[in-house]
């Protein structure tokens, strides 16, 4: 240890030297662009108009939050997609995790198989389901007709309600496996002795679920929900492929709306302002997430 202390006093620069390559890259490729985007958001730079731009202060932010019905609508759409997705992912994920936590054969292989959708790109998940939903040749309509459940070729994206339902279904298929893995890890960290003690006290399985499992799984659930919520706030690829925001903009999420403003309308300044509003939302959620984590560590200690 003395050798270490000596090396440390002589080589004060070493920690910084080791960390500097990534710090430099992060500064150039992430932090500088972020600062640049903030500066942009205070201008009225519009590539479709021309390279000139002037300083307009907070006007873009005011426009987005007060007047821009499309942006406010996209906030609403995102919330409408997030809420049912989270509930379903939590319930379904908990159900499957509880099944996998029982004494069953082939648990590792079943867990890995169910986990696969979570590893797939949102784009690929959406493309697969887009074809499954296909009106004339999709598996869902074909299966439905074969089983006599439907008698016409059904358009699953015909109305806003159906389209949102379809988006939620694909999102649940895509990310329930993640929730399941998180909750399964949480379940496996609950000591068996607690269940034995509950049983000795004459608790039914239902009672021990409510008074042992759920209270001890509370923080794990909170962490899983926060991670999914932060992720869903950025929902983009799935929408791009599955609905492209339609019908009538009913599935346009905040990230997708910002993409359209930036790369279809080329209103760079306004898109920057919108992206900063998303960053603000994600930052708030991240702070809540960190608070929960700290709370959990304090509990564990």
């Amino acid at each position: 240890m003395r050798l270490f202390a000596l090396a440390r006093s002589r080589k004060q620069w070493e920690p910084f030297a080791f960390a500097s390559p990534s710090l430099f890259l992060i500064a150039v490729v992430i932090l500088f662009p972020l600062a640049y985007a903030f500066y942009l958001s205070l201008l009225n730079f519009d590539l479709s108009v021309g390279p000139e731009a002037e300083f307009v202060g907070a006007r873009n932010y005011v426009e987005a939050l007060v007047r821009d019905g499309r942006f406010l609508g996209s906030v609403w759409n995102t919330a409408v997609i997030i809420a049912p997705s989270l509930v379903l992912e939590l319930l379904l994920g908990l159900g499957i995790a509880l099944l996998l936590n029982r004494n069953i054969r082939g648990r590792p292989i079943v867990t890995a198989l169910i986990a696969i959708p979570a590893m797939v790109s949102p784009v690929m998940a959406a493309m697969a389901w887009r074809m499954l939903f296909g009106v004339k040749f999709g598996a869902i309509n074909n299966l439905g007709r074969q089983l006599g459940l439907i008698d016409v070729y059904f358009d699953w994206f015909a109305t806003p309600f159906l389209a949102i339902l379809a988006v939620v279904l694909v999102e649940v298929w895509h990310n329930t496996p993640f929730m399941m893995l998180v909750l399964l890890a949480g379940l496996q960290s609950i000591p068996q002795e607690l269940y034995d003690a509950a049983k000795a006290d004459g608790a039914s399985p239902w009672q021990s679920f409510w008074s042992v499992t759920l209270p001890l799984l509370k923080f794990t659930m909170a962490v899983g929900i926060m991670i999914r919520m932060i992720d869903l706030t950025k929902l983009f690829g799935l929408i791009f492929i599955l609905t492209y925001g339609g019908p009538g903009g009913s599935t346009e999420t905040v990230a997708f709306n910002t993409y359209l403003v930036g790369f279809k309308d080329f209103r760079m300044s306004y898109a920057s302002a919108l992206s900063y509003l998303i960053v603000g939302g994600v930052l708030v959620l991240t702070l809540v997430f960190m608070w929960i984590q700290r709370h959990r560590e304090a509990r564990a200690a």
Partner: protein
Amino acid sequence: MSVTLDRPATLTMRSAARHRLWRGVAQVATYLGLAAALVFFLGPFFWIVTTSLKGNEDFFAYPPVWIPSDPSLKHYTGLFTRSSGLRYFGNSLIISTLSMLAALVVSLPTAYSIARWRFGGGFLSTLLLVLRMLPAIALIIPIYLMYKAFGLTNSYFGLVMLYTVVYIPFAVWLLVGFLRDFPVEIEEAAMIDGCSRLRALIAVVVPIIAPGMAVVALFAFIATWNEFLFAIVLTGIETKTMMVLVTSFTTGGTDQFYGEATASVVLGVLPAFAVAFMLQRYLVKGLALGGTKG
């Protein structure tokens, strides 16, 4: 226990039988539930794979054909030649491999600095966590303008650099965990023998934490492979990735392309299948904080 002993023997036996019956029912229900979950989560893959193999246009048939009567790789060759699928598959492979290697090389010394010297303290780890959560949409607008100014759009270098840096926070965080588990004494021994710290890191630490680095590498690979927003904005006709190729099947209705579209999805999800099995132990940790998101 004493209560049961006092009861008449027949009652105990009957309740034991009922208990066994319930256990059996619960066990059957468990397996049924898991079977249903497997069908829901894997069914779509089954349909995509079989559809991609329907050489004789079975997908237009009604009643539907679930197992191709005459399996062929026709649509894969069509995808590779007509839609330049081979080129874009190669692009995805090249870009993901390079980003993965670069992210590892750059992140390891930083992770070491944090693990051994607590470099940057709480501030740096908070910054890394926040950057890990940062929405890609906030970066793409300034990056697009900067890349256009420097001529970096439609280039492998531009995309690889972006993927590498965006992945650093996650890679550092995961590597710090592996390095903290590494005993300092082994390094000290190497350094007493005259190794510089960098040499000790490369020659002594790296071989031992190699499995951990492989985990980080695989997550980095799949994250880059899956990334979409940067790819669709920054790639051009030569540098498209598989994710961008897929978008070409969404315009004009997929009906005419069913074969090639399903084939491209099969190729696009291949790494996910491989990684799900290889990384099983680390899935929670990796997925938790954007391991597979670019």
